[in-house]
């Protein structure tokens, strides 16, 4: 048995503890720079150890899985060769349309293509540490031009946004996290919606979409892309396919599911957009490229986030995902 030190009554300990912890919480809400500083210290000390271990462990497991997957690889190779031929044919057709598109663009004086983002590739070096949140760490940071709020893409679709930037690492909040909200728009007819991460639904492979206007038509399989009403996400990035949209209980809006395109359980490498995301950049690159003005009067020429969300019947999607 240890010799007893000063015996502080339990209720004082608990009182002080709650006081300190709540104080820390308030401090990190009031001044994000405080939370940033604490996080930065933690990362600087522990991230190098984690990276080394992860790299060693991953190379070990990949060696084992490579040996196991030989035969399935052969089958996959045959299927993929067939797919390549298919895609080559498709590509040829697309090139023809591209040529036509270029000439038509020239005709209209639209020189900007909304897809001209500057991107850097990054590798995931750390996954979520718990079961209540979905975020990961990538091995590129401010040295490579990544900034707070950079959009992250994989498999040609939105994965998340950067919530913390270090010199050579950054943390990404994925769109499947429960606190994430993304303003979306149906590519088919320009109906707006909000794509929400949902911890419970995600295990079935879905996200939630809601705040769809009651009279909007979103059918199963419609492609949802990021809307141009956001000042966090670039417009026109694919998110996933809608399904099961139906009237919600309030009889005003519709809700449904969204199956993301990016495979979150299997992410290894991601692309990060390093083009600065200012409203100017959006209006230069957006071109209202996706919306069909005939079905949605608000989705017209203006690209300022404020003016458009003001026209919506539902409150504007708060993109930040802050709670």
């Amino acid at each position: 048995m240890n010799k007893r030190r000063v015996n502080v009554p339990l209720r004082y300990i608990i009182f002080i503890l709650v006081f300190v912890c709540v104080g820390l919480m308030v401090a990190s809400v009031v001044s994000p720079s405080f939370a940033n500083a604490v996080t930065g210290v933690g990362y600087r000390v522990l991230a190098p150890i984690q990276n080394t271990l992860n790299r060693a462990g991953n190379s070990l497991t990949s060696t084992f899985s490579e040996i196991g997957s030989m035969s399935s690889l052969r089958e996959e190779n045959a299927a993929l060769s067939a797919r390549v031929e298919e895609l080559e044919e498709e590509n040829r057709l697309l090139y023809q349309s591209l040529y036509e598109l270029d000439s038509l663009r020239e005709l209209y004086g639209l020189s900007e293509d909304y897809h001209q983002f500057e991107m850097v590739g990054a590798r995931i070096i750390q996954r979520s540490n718990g079961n209540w949140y979905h975020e990961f760490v990538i091995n590129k940071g401010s040295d490579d031009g990544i900034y707070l709020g950079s959009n992250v893409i994989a498999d040609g679709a939105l994965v998340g946004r950067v919530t913390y930037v270090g010199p050579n690492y950054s943390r990404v909040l994925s769109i499947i996290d429960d606190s994430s909200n993304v303003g979306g728009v149906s590519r088919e007819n320009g109906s707006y919606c909000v794509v929400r991460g949902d911890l419970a639904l995600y295990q079935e492979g879905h996200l939630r979409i809601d705040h769809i206007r009651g009279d909007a038509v979103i059918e199963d399989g419609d492609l949802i892309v990021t809307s141009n009403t956001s000042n966090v996400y670039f417009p026109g990035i694919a998110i996933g396919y809608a399904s099961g949209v139906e009237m919600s209980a309030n009889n005003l809006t519709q809700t449904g599911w969204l199956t993301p395109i990016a495979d979150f359980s299997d992410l290894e490498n991601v692309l990060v957009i390093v083009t600065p995301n200012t409203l100017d950049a959006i209006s230069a690159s957006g071109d209202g490229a996706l919306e069909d003005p005939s079905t949605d009067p608000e989705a017209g020429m203006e690209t300022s986030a404020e003016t458009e969300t003001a026209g919506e019947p539902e409150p504007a999607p708060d993109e930040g995902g802050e709670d």
Partner: protein
Amino acid sequence: MDRPFIVKVITAALAILIGFLLQTCLCSTILRLYSIPNILLFVTVMYGLRYDRYAGLAVGAVCGLLTDIFSGTMLIGFYMLIYALLGIACGLLHRFLNEQEFALPVIMTVICDLVYGLYVYVFMFMLRGDFRFGLYLNRVIFPEALFTAIAAFILFWVMRAQFNAVSRYEKRRARKFG
């Protein structure tokens, strides 16, 4: 500061670091388990049970701070509070502990993990208007408790060896200088 105390602090720091790396690197990133066991909570419970409420408080606060930093919520103090409280609670049960038995530590780890899950659900989900408690219970809280129980059962023997080594050292020192 006596030497045994410093030894205890260093071994506690090592236990936290190793638990943290096991949880974040091995279970999460390398093995990609279906549910990530809460090994930091296990370390907190073990220290609370083995020593006293001060040890539970200190180890819990550090473990909670680590979780705060690496959870990406940018809310320092949230996990720290629950880990430290659970550490204190385990410290109060110290006198029931038979140091060589795994039953109490494993059961306490599971109970604490359930309480921890309830705490996160209430403050992070229910207060935002998300009342699907059954869903979270089935999908997140129970799997995590199960995985944590398995991890606790495996790691208990490592922790026991560590505690025994430290107390042997203490006794040796007490004989020499006592």
